[in-house]
């Protein structure tokens, strides 16, 4: 639906003082996010500097029936902040202030455009800890993290973004502003509306402020790296550690393809014939950490680790973590197009799922490196391909479909931490069922009756 007349002139007239951009050089950089291949030019990009400006944009949008796609730093991996045709991009990167750190209540309040790393740093400065650490945290915004319910490497022990959101300021379609939540640990007054907006991918409202929970930081940590000839053995190690009632803060793995790519790139002396590498870390009270680390070492050896190294100090820990930290960089250099997926299965099905991904790769003649979070079953099968090779892209699509299907069959999900956005829309019904999607539609219509907020993301309004 094209806007009658000059959209940007009308927008400037309707929202006094708002920064509006509409030249091709200004729009092209906002026509994509961190997702491969997806691209759409917006009609305009606007930069809000306050909640009041967001209100004026959503009022104008409702009045003129122009869709709005909200965006922070555009690092999403499912196309959630890719513009929609004829729509405007509402960028919140300039609303980036930390508003309050409350050490008495262990909370932090920030504008939604504040960077995750800035929040993490502000917590640290106050002697506190904000655990969620998505891979893009150096540039991702907290608003985007909440909208996508981002995960990270510490999921198993510390949970995900949702577990740290205590309150939100949200601007609804039409411009109404609500606060949901507060600094109380306990609050059962009515529906917990804030939970509705967490992971809503910008389809229900525009998050403008976030109230976060902070925790005391762990006093000590210990890092280990184990090498295996068999992925099953690595998986059994993880199961046995958890059965021994230890919850490590990190349990990350790399598969054979990833190990080789990392070694080619970083040359850190990884065994090229290994089938799996497991990076393990435990944190907490120093005495507990010592005990847990010793138990984890023992379990890893009992489960057939071919070699095991425990870091003696922080610098050595950092060097052990290099393999995992370079995994994505190493894979990204292999081929022109890198597609990072996040199929997730219950922990105990992990080796089966990894084996399945390797088979699918072979069957479709594709290069797939898999790494990820073994503790929480969140895998990152990474397709190393070329978007210009049409035939190969078809095979990528077929392989993905099989992988998602299998993940759901095993009791898992199509996305652990990236969101549905555009990229996984067509798999949603298969994953959660028609009834669930029907309820989502009703919620969407209740809050955004004209379908103006990030329309066409997660699901379509008409089935």
């Amino acid at each position, binding site marked *: 639906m094209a806007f009658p007349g000059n959209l940007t002139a009308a927008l400037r007239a309707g929202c006094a003082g708002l920064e509006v*951009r509409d*030249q*091709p*050089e*200004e729009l*092209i*950089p*906002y*026509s*994509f*996010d*961190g997702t*491969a291949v997806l691209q759409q030019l917006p009609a305009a990009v606007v*930069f809000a500097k306050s909640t009041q400006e967001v209100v004026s944009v959503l009022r104008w949008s409702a009045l003129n029936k122009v869709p709005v796609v909200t965006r922070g*730093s*555009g*690092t999403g991996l499912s196309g959630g902040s890719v513009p929609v045709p004829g729509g405007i991009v509402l*960028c919140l*990167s*300039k609303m*980036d202030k930390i508003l309050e750190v409350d050490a008495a209540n262990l909370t932090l309040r920030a504008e939604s*455009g504040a*960077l995750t*790393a800035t929040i993490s740093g502000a917590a640290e400065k106050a002697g506190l800890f904000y655990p969620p650490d998505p891979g*893009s945290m*150096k*540039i*991702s915004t907290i608003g985007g993290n909440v909208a996508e319910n981002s995960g990270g490497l510490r999921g198993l022990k510390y949970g995900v973004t949702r577990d740290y959101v205590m309150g939100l300021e949200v601007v609804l379609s039409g411009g109404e502003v609500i606060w949901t939540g507060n600094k109380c640990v306990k609050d059962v007054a009515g529906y917990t509306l804030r939970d509705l907006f967490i992971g809503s991918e910008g389809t229900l409202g525009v998050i403008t402020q976030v109230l976060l929970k902070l925790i005391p930081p762990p006093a000590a940590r210990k890092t280990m790296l184990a090498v295996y000839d068999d992925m099953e053995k690595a998986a059994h190690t993880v199961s046995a550690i958890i059965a021994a009632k230890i919850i490590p803060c990190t349990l990350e793995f790399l598969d054979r393809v990833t190990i080789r790519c990392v070694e080619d790139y970083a040359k850190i002396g990884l065994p090229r014939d290994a089938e799996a590498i497991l990076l393990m870390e435990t944190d907490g009270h120093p005495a507990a950490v010592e005990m847990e680390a010793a138990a984890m070492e023992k379990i890893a050896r009992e489960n057939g680790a071919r070699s095991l190294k425990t870091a003696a100090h922080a610098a050595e820990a950092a060097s052990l973590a290099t393999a995992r930290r370079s995994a*994505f*960089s190493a894979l*990204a*250099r292999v081929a*022109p*197009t*890198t597609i990072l997926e996040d199929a997730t299965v219950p922990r105990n099905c992990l080796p089966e799922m990894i084996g399945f991904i390797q088979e699918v790769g072979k069957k479709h003649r594709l290069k797939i490196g898999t790494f990820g979070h073994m503790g929480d079953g969140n895998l990152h099968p990474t397709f190393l391909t*070329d*978007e*210009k090779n049409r035939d190969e892209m078809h095979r990528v699509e077929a392989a993905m479909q099989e992988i998602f299907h299998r993940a759901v069959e095993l009791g898992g999900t199509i996305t652990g931490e990236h969101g549905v956005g555009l990229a996984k829309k067509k798999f949603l019904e298969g994953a959660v069922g028609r009834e669930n999607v029907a309820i989502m539609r009703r919620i969407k219509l209740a809050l955004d009756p004209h379908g103006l907020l990030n329309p066409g993301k997660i699901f379509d309004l008409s089935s």
Partner: protein
Amino acid sequence: MSSGETLASLDYSILQQCMHCGLCLPTCPTYDATKNEQHSPRGRISLMRAIADGRLAPTRGFGEEMSYCLGCLACETACPAGVDYAHLFETARADGERAGVLDHPLRRIVRGLTLKFLFTHPRCLRMAGRLLWLYQASGLQKLARVLGLPRLLPNRLRELEALTPIILAKFSHQLIAPVENPKEKRRYRVGLLTGCVQDLVFADINRDTADVLLANGCEVVTPPVQPCCGSLHAHNGDPETAAGMARRMIDLFNPASFDAIVTNAAGCGSHLKNYGRLLDGDPVYANRAREWDRKVKDIQEWLVEIGFRTPKGVIRERVTYHEACHLCHGQKITRQPREILRSIPGLELVELPESTWCCGSAGVYNLTQPETAMALQKRKVGHIFSTQVRVVATSNPGCHLQISIGLARRQADVRVDQPVSLLARAYRLEKD
């Protein structure tokens, strides 16, 4: 880029290598200042790709965007996918120049006089430097400033006048003999590049470089007249002239007859190591250019590679280190300058906050984008103050000048020096 290459003719996979993850954004000074994606590496690459795809023609907006980019290459260090931004950026600026999107009569005159004339004729450049020296040494500049004459100049020129560096009385060829031999046994034969700005403003640092090489068993060969390396041309959209300069340089220093060809200017070094790419399609020079790339070494890189001798002279000083972009990002040299500074007895190295953040010099950026350059200079000087040192070391003439001016503006009692000069001084102190 090989000369003549355009965004459209470029190997497309270089553009595709950017997976638009956004990890470059927080390291980009212009994104940091604006929070606008258009002024970020990811945004700029999307514009380049649009031009390569034919979705966008080179426009004035595109040209302005490319000149707003500092070319500091911090994005290359941050990039997980290894995007060759320098290559893309130089090609994009050349596309802009070819399309004439920023064309203006005055700009054409300035570019013609500098890029095409002064920086291709080293003798004329020295002549111009000598005239400037006369103006300064005779007291005329001081007189003009006392009389307030610069105030009569238009705004832009007045700012430039204030940036004029102090020209030295002697240039490199008056300080360094064409061939100098070490006192002890010769271990290596090394060619020394004297640079353009370095030659006029920091010839003493070239002398220090030669001394340090001699002290480490290198025979130093320094042709008295050397052409510009072409980095100025390559960075400013004139790859054809840059290729010409590269050929002249290779003719002057036959790479086969040296163990290393040493430069002490980070901006030059970062470009000098890419002659192979620049002359890729050249049937006569391509092979020699590849050999050249292998032989070019930053002085600090070379000293650490050959295991330089630890000096015995003591310099009691707290020193901080500013990393020139084209050393730490362009050449990935970060460890060696620190190793050299730490080797000097008595010298305490204090780490500089944001040491890899651009100081705003960025070639001629402080002339073309004074406002952004000034903001970056202020930020850098603020960090230097926070370390409470009296000496800041850096290894690039552009940074050296930019930071000196920034410190002078704040009337700071902090001096700028270079690691190689400090090392040379430590060696000299051994004899006292």
